């Protein structure tokens, strides 16, 4: 079995130690880091995403695979920086001001990284200004916001409005999610998209990115 296929297989089993060892070996054998990422790590995570969507595997399986993906990525990232290879896009994520829930948003971040995006996780209780300042500074294409309380959902609209005021609508896309959030609410506040779970969020961000290219 070739090395990239082995990485892909072991990643799916959530074997981070094997993925680390195989990624090192692949680098020693002069396989291009971009190929290791695309054909090994991301390809493995794509299969995991599909299997999860089809209810063939459980959330812990996805998260163990993500840990293995991160283990491989840790070895590749310095090389990408060194060679100036850009990621497929930068996404800023956070739970909105007043909201301390982290888990759902973290899962979205993990899956986005697994799909090859660069993710800047601002944590929770993030103000509208912080979302936009960071997106501008980092030249991010997408802001992802999460809210788990109906009382914090209006903060999402403030981010959308602030983005408009600054003339950044269209250039920076907004995706929202969280238990009380819906497609209708996304439309109502003028967000670009709604993600109903982590896998769907990755698909949606990918779609948003391709639109803005």
């Amino acid at each position, binding site marked *: 079995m070739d090395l990239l296929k082995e990485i892909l297989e072991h990643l799916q089993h959530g074997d981070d130690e094997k993925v680390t060892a195989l990624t090192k070996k692949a680098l020693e054998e002069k396989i291009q880091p971009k190929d290791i990422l695309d054909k090994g790590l991301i390809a493995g995570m794509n299969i995991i995403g599909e299997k999860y969507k089809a209810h063939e595997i459980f*959330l812990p399986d996805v998260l163990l695979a993500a*840990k293995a993906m991160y283990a491989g990525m840790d070895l590749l990232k310095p090389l990408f920086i060194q060679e100036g290879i850009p990621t497929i896009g930068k996404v800023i994520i956070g739970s909105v001001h007043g909201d301390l829930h*982290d888990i759902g948003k973290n899962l979205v971040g993990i899956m986005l990284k697994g799909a090859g995006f660069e993710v800047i996780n601002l944590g929770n209780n993030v103000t509208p200004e912080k979302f936009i300042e960071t997106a501008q500074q980092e030249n991010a294409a997408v802001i992802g916001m999460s809210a788990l309380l109906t*009382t914090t959902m209006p903060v999402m609209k403030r981010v959308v409005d602030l983005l408009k005021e600054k003339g950044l609508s269209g250039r920076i896309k907004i995706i929202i999610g969280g238990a009380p959030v819906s497609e209708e609410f996304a439309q109502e506040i003028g967000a670009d998209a709604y993600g109903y779970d982590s896998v769907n969020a990755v698909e949606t961000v990918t779609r948003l990115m391709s639109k803005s290219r």
Partner: protein
Amino acid sequence: MREIIEISNGDITAEKDKVLMNQGISLKDELPEKVITLLGKAMDIFITFSHPVGIISDISISEFDTVYKGEGLNEKDTPVDEIFREADNLALFAVTIGEKVSKKIDELFKKNEFALGSMLDSTASAGADKAADIVENRFLNLLLKDGEATPSTGILRYSPGYCGWHISGQKKLFEFIHPEEIGITLLDSFLMKPLKSVSGVIVAGKKEIHNFEDSYPFCSQCKTHSCRERIRALFIEDSPNNRQGRT
């Protein structure tokens, strides 16, 4: 009556099915060994780091009417609004499992231990519910001791943020019961800190008063409809919700 209830860690170990349900897994599913291992580890960490404590205070129907009205943001018609008026006894409560578990969850995510962090989060949510069960049972036992409950008494709890009771209802609830005494604070967004805390009203009365249809306009937004199971359990002869003198 107002009481702070120290709860033993061992008593809030949640049932495996409830933890797995929070992970989107049913016990009917064939569980891979690695999921079972994660669950075991999460439960061990949970027992080590949780510090469950609760507070309970009885409240009259007229007092609760004020608490319930809160900031005036409730839905127009709600089941809680009808149920509490028919109650024999009411008590406000708040419980928490403490801050340490939440910190441990953060720590695990930072160390890329996503699966264990997520499993611990699910364990903690189920554990906080279990702590609320214990406080609810304590109220029932007090009523039984005082001869204020009978074998036909049905007892259920309701929380702000659910069933049309707006989450801003937390404000008046906190003003009445002061959960700050057990380390729970309320943020401007009405979120409780520590995150794994539960608050609300415990309603004791005839079982029938709890029996409502989930056909209120806001029910369509509800993703769990867990009221169905809770109500059903009240009417099952040997369910934990229908056992007198529960511990």
